[in-house]
């Protein structure tokens, strides 16, 4: 099959590039598969149609592949609404919201390993902690638990609130209780003490959550303000900074020692220990279809923006430098919504 040859070629050239780029590096990073050393782009697809897909771009932006799941698995459908992706060891868990499915693949070869379906009710996000996969579900407002190696269903934790993004820190789970502008709390679950639960109140419009150095950062944005909370995971108490001039901040992503976020068409950055919001954008992008930042991510100082293109045609991904210089423009799958560094 022709594609295979293309692949081998790409694989070989990726090897070649990887080996020449680090002349004096001591490490020998041998790719573990065609999709190592790059960024996975999740395309959610059209609601009601099983056309979610994953695209791949190498870290050096020279190798681009579309629909890697279909390519590696005999054109098998990934599913309906690819919501999110998480990694554990050499696996990737892809959450398909409308299909009620988590597809498990080898993160480097993208060969399908398993399909988890048990007790999923519109699953949203996932994370692995101590060998267990935790998946948030929007209809059941619960977190379902699976063995991350055997994929066996282990149990359910009722959250009884919107269960959206989920991160781990200090052996605990932090679950964002909000989506699409609503919600103002974070639920903390401690699996080590029989899933004891506590709730931290943040600000309405909770939209992103990230872990860094034992702290959990939570960004909230609404029509009156933007507010960033920093939760100390030892005590589960939060401190915050806010801006009432820069409202509706979104899309927080921490890269290195910087917190990145967007507001309107602007990209902003501030230090992890900032005491005020940065209100001057690094740069602004041209707004041509109202959805320039449907997906947003910062990886190794490069800014990835995903324009959903109205969900009617190929999504457009732009890779930009910290000053807004366009490094690469890609036509990806339908409705790109997230970027995942795969190294």
């Amino acid at each position, binding site marked *: 099959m022709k594609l295979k040859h293309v692949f081998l070629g790409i694989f070989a050239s990726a090897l070649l590039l990887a080996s020449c780029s680090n002349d004096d590096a001591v490490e020998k990073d041998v790719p573990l598969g065609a999709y190592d050393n790059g960024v996975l782009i999740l395309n959610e697809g059209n609601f009601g149609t*099983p056309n979610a897909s994953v695209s791949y771009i190498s870290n050096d932006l020279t190798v681009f592949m579309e629909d890697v799941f279909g390519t590696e698995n005999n054109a098998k459908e990934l599913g*309906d609404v690819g919501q999110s992706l998480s990694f554990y060891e050499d696996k990737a868990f892809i959450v398909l919201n409308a299909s009620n499915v988590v597809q498990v693949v080898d993160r480097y070869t993208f060969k399908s390993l398993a399909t988890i379906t048990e007790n999923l009710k*519109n699953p949203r996000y996932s994370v692995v902690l101590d060998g267990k996969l935790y998946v948030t579900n*929007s*209809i059941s407002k619960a977190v379902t638990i699976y063995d991350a190696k055997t994929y066996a269903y282990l149990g359910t934790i009722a959250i009884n609130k919107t269960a959206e993004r989920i991160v781990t820190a200090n052996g605990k789970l932090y679950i964002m209780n909000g989506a699409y502008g*609503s919600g103002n709390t974070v639920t903390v679950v401690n699996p080590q003490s029989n899933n004891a639960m506590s709730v931290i109140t943040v600000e309405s419009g909770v939209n992103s959550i990230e872990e860094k150095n034992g702290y959990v950062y939570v960004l909230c944005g609404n029509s009156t303000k933007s507010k960033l909370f920093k939760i100390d995971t030892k005590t589960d108490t939060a401190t915050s900074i806010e801006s009432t001039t820069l409202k509706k901040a979104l899309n927080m992503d921490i890269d290195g020692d910087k917190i990145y976020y967007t507001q309107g068409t602007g990209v902003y950055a501030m230090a992890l220990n900032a005491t005020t919001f940065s209100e001057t954008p690094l740069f602004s992008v041209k707004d041509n*279809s109202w959805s320039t930042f449907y997906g947003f991510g910062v990886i190794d100082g490069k800014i990835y923006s995903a324009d959903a293109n*109205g969900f009617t045609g190929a999504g457009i991904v732009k890779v930009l430098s910290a000053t807004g210089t366009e490094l690469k423009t890609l036509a990806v799958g339908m409705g790109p919504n997230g970027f995942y560094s795969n190294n």
Partner: protein
Amino acid sequence: MTAKKLLLLSIVLSCQFILAQNKVAIPLNEVVVSDNQLKNFSSSQSVQKLNDSIISKNQSSLTSLLNYTTAIYFKENGLGMVSSPSFRGTTSQQTVVVWNGININSQLLGQTDFNTVSTREFNSIDVKAGGGSVVYGSGAIGGTIHLNNELKFADTFKNSLQVYYGDFNSLSAIYGLTAATNKWSANASFTRNSSDNDFKFIGKEGRNTNGQYYNNSLNTALGYKLNAKNSIKFYSQIYDGERHFSLTSLYATKTKYEDYNSRNLLTWTSFIGKSVSNVKLAFITEHYKYFEDIESKGFSSGGVKSLIAKYDFAYQLSPKMNLNAILDYTKNKGLGSGIGENTREIGGLSMLFQQSLSQDWNYEISARKEVSDVYKSPVVFSAGSTYDFSEIYRLKFNFSRNYRIPTFNDLYWQGSGNPDLKPENSYQAEVGNQFRYRDFRLNATVYATKIDDMIRWLPNNFGNWSPVNTDKVSIYGAEALLGWNKKWAAHFVDFNGTYAYTVSLDDKNDKQLFYVPYHKITASSSYSYKKWNAYYQFMFTGEVFTTSDNNPKYILSDYTVSNFGMDYNFSQKNVCKIGFKIANLWNEKYEALPSRIMPGRNLTLYLNLNY
């Protein structure tokens, strides 16, 4: 996530309003139609009439009827599921369904779901191509579909029963009663449709799951002549349906949707000298419930109640000149999970004028202006003319401006609605050629349409979806309608065909609009010999793009579907027919939308009684 799903669903279904018809009912005919403007002010456009014999040969949904008999393309989410039209290359919300002269498109979605209208309760259904906003209001851009109940003032007493039963436990039954004297007339029917809809996929493992549906409809029309100059008519329809939505992936959450719609219209007609006045009062409700998980009790719901008052005054200036003025007032009140509580008021004035310049030459002009507390609407107009070059050939011309106002969801959806939306705006020109020669009829029309400020829901940079006035579209195309019939001795043959060529371009990239086929063909033929009758139906839908960039990877293939049916009438004087129909005779594997597989060959048996 609930809100997003609901929103997406709204978008999928997707916008709109209510206005209606008007004009002089020239002296009381024996048969009274409810929509005078369709009769008197549509001569420069193309109108295709589907009578009850055509209606009864097709499946009971409006989608199925129009798919096999007209050039309209349907986006059907699987058999019986949500179904949207594309008429002359326009969007789902740019075709209006008109019930007895009243626009009944959903105020929440702006469109009618063509699988929530059952056809057999109507005496006739007319399909008018092209703009009609002056008379039918918002959304009449691509065309209008007219559902008509007719009242007959002549001694009659008739019962009719039609029962259809077939594969997948599909039942369609309608019982109707017609009773009339020369003073009063009554017409009532009850319809029930239901199906397990669990057909096996062709060429793929599995069955259609969670596709079951039912609906009930009660339809009434009453007329009473007070005296020689005054009459009162009342029309009513109640529709109650529940559909589960078929799954497109194996483990997806099962959902269902319930519709409850009621429509009531009271008309008082008086003839005074050379004028006819019609006072109309309509009360229309729509209500839905959406269950995002049938295993739990929770649902979201919404509805709109609309009151429409209208004064329609027609005056004959001379035997060759007619004037018609319509003053109307509409109040819509919406209440629902997503839209809160909102009210909208619209007042409008339409003027229509028609003149015959000679035996062969006729023209009509009309205009409408409306005022609303919510949006600014343009002056819309229509101007048309017809000229008969000979007995055989008539030339028609029509130019119109039409519009579509934002829906309740567009304006008020919590956190997303955009109160600053403008109405969509369209200009359209068409030239029609009508040929009649003995038993042949051919209508060939070319048209061009320009639409701007099209409303679309898009995700924005504030993490939300919101509707905006964005797209501009240029459409041109051609349609042909062909008819022929012949009777000799005990034989009767007839043939009807339609063909549409449609180019609908997004001005942004000059690409064909997705889900608009370049070609669509329908053909049907029937042959009767004495009491036997057989018929064949054929539909070809060309390939469609499913993405705005016309990516060839995501083309939905063309499909050709044929049906065959046959029946025998046992009765001498009345109707006592027994028959069968095979749908999808050649077992074509096809999808009208991606991943929405349609059924293969299936059989229906039927009985029609009329006494």
